């Protein structure tokens, strides 16, 4: 089974500037670990590989660390790549 998710980097922050990445959709297995999802994205945007240790996902606006956590994605789910924050 496949699920189409929108993934994007928020902000013009480091990510955009690194990969020219704003918003794309991607078809991935409906069940996938967050690290596997990351690797799918890196296949398309290899320049992102170097920031692997810097980012987390927000899946439907909930933080998910890159790792073994299994995501159960619905079509249309929103996955954001979140670079280190600096609010305040």
């Amino acid at each position, binding site marked *: 089974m496949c699920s189409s998710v929108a993934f994007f980097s928020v*902000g013009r922050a480091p990510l955009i500037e690194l990969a020219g990445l704003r918003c794309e959709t991607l078809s991935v297995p409906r069940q996938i670990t967050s690290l596997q999802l990351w690797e799918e994205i890196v296949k398309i945007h290899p320049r992102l590989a170097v920031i692997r240790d810097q980012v987390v996902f*927000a899946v439907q606006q909930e933080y998910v*660390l890159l790792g073994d956590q299994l995501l159960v994605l619905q079509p249309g789910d929103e996955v954001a790549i979140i670079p*280190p*924050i*600096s*609010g*305040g």
Partner: protein
Amino acid sequence: MDESEDVPKDFIKLKSEKLSVDEVSELVISPCCGAVSLFIGTTRNNFQGKKVIHLEYEAYMSMAETEIKKICRDVRQKWPSVKHIAVHHRLGVVPVTEASVIIAISSPHRAESLEAVMYCINTLKASVPIWKKEIYEGEYSWKENKECFWTNSEK
């Protein structure tokens, strides 16, 4: 105002206009509270010897609001006597000496509001998806909070 009407409220705002300390403190003042504590984050004119022209903030808006609401919920669990909480964060350009964030919290007695404000700004820096770009003369830098919970560099 009848005390019973003054139910606890959260005031959360992300906006590109100048923040007002008076406005934010007025939001949380309550006739049954004797204490309001505030924290104001302002733009500094220097970073490691470099002259800062201004800051630029941007946010993952909807998620930032959700994360701030979570912080408010945590505050109310930790300090049940807290009455009102206001968190205003500015986006876009913030000139030197102007406020990027104002947090105000009221409580009947002072210890709770002081501790809650400290918790609130610490947690905001660790978990709210907002980014800051420091603009120097001829260059800029995206900043990274040392409190950011997944890098948590404590550099």
